[in-house]
């Protein structure tokens, strides 16, 4: 059975001036026990989708179910069994770590002790600060506590809306390791993120942009569909290199990627590129084949749409 089924969902918000489409005809399924990622920037429609699946919003059209329950008709059943961590979720800042956890356990009619096994690995990391107020925790610690609160009632499906936004690289890495651990325990996890590099941690991902799913598959499959030869280029002056390559007639696309620029050529005549860069007085030029990553694919898909 699928843990989540989404069929032709459409959601629009109308303001005074205009109609904003948050989701246009979104369909996908998530298998039980899967770690599924929704990857996309702000405004892609991730939050709207999560709110529909957690029964907080009604879609304009289309259907969806979670754990076999319809999000509209059987919303009470869904609320009894899913865990949800909204974006910018801030807990109760004036309550301690322990008080927060105890509170969220009780509203799900359970106790910390009853499901301690599930949160143990995460909770031990914050346990030394259990008498500290949530408002005094660092970003990474807050995320861990929020995850504990969403898990404490042993949900069958866990929805995490941008849990790593604004969190430093170390905490992000730790957070994803925790998710992997939860997956081992059989919990289906849907997680959204604007960080493309996090896609690699998921079983399958949906790349979203402006309310549409551009691609949906395992990360390796998405990368294999990139379909073009990618080159990594660098020189002593990276910014001038970028503008020069963008002007170059044989360039299909060129984007900066850390210490290299990623270049796709119309024909793979790399000698001509090196000659051109020499003419433009670039020094220390290096050009080598590169492996595309999810972000390359995302930008390619954005340009194609």
């Amino acid at each position, binding site marked *: 059975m699928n843990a989540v089924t989404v069929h032709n969902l459409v959601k629009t918000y109308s*303001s005074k*001036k*205009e109609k904003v489409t948050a989701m246009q005809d979104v369909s996908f399924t998530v298998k039980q026990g899967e770690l599924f990622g929704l990857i*996309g*920037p*702000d*405004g*892609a429609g991730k939050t709207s989708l999560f709110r529909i699946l957690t029964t907080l919003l009604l879609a304009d059209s289309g259907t969806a179910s979670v754990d076999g329950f319809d999000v509209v008709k059987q919303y009470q059943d869904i609320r009894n069994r899913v865990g949800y961590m909204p974006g910018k979720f801030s807990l109760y800042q004036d309550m301690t770590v322990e008080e927060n956890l105890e509170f969220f356990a009780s509203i799900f009619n359970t106790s910390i002790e009853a499901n301690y096994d599930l949160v143990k690995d995460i909770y031990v990391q914050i346990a030394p*600060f259990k008498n*500290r107020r949530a408002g*005094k*925790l*660092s*970003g*990474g*610690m807050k995320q861990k506590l929020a995850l504990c609160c969403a898990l404490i009632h042993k949900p069958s499906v866990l929805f995490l809306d*941008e849990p790593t*936004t*604004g*969190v*430093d*690289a*170390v*905490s*992000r*890495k730790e957070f994803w390791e925790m998710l992997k651990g939860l997956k081992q325990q059989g919990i289906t996890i849907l997680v959204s993120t*604007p*960080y*493309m590099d996090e896609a690699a941690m998921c079983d399958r991902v949906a790349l979203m*942009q402006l309310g549409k799913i551009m691609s949906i598959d395992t990360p390796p499959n998405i990368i294999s569909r990139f379909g073009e030869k990618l080159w990594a280029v660098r020189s002593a002056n*990276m*910014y001038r290199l*970028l503008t020069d390559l963008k002007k170059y007639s044989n360039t299909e696309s060129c*984007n*900066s*990627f*850390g*210490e290299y620029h990623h270049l796709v050529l119309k024909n793979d005549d790399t000698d001509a590129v090196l000659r051109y860069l020499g003419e433009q007085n670039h020094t220390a030029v290096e050009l080598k084949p590169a492996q595309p990553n999810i*972000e390359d694919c*995302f*930008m390619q898909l*954005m*340009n194609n749409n």
Partner: protein
Amino acid sequence: MKETVIKAERLTKKFGDFTATNQISFEVEKGEIFGFLGANGAGKTTAMRMLCGLSIPSSGNATVAGYDVYKQTELIKQNIGYMSQKFSLYEDLTVKENIRFYAGIYGMGSAEIKTKMNALLQQLQMTAEENSLVGSLPLGWKQKLAFSVAILHEPKIVFLDEPTGGVDPVTRREFWNLIYEAAEKGITVFVTTHYMDEAEYCNRISIMVDGKIEALDTPHNLKTIFHASSMDEVFLQLARGAKRTAD
């Protein structure tokens, strides 16, 4: 020919018995893109506030654009620009109104504002949106606009606090192109980010751990020193040793 625009010497800020920023020293040159990295709670925000003249240091010295962070905070504010992910523009004002408001704060005349506004709107290709409310624009546009507004009065230094969080990959690169252009014009860029690929775009990077600067060099040198293949690895090696758990 090198001109130092930010100079910090053993700059320290204490809150009670908690040392948020512990004796940090560094220099930033004119036109440099300086990446200021660190885990949440490492003391970046506190350091940035002192440099912007918003917070008086507990000890140590610093000058920003040649002005002292203890006594000349008003002059510092005249000579810097600032933008962050959280605070950028007024969502309930139009694009034009926002530009005019910020230009007005820095005492520009109306003729100057008009010329600069038109140039800015053209550069960002936002002329068609000039009368739209900022709240109705996509995040990436907002951030590009906010950056352009922050450097409208041609400050010597611009401070950017996580400017690209949540922005799509294409717009994120366009944003960095704006940063490069500003740097070419001689504006010094002081930037914090959680995207490690963006760290590579900086001329030099400092990494803060528990209130101290633990590493400061070019991305290339840092990777060599730490025997790492990417900035991500360098950062993880340093930040994993952090003791601090609270902001």
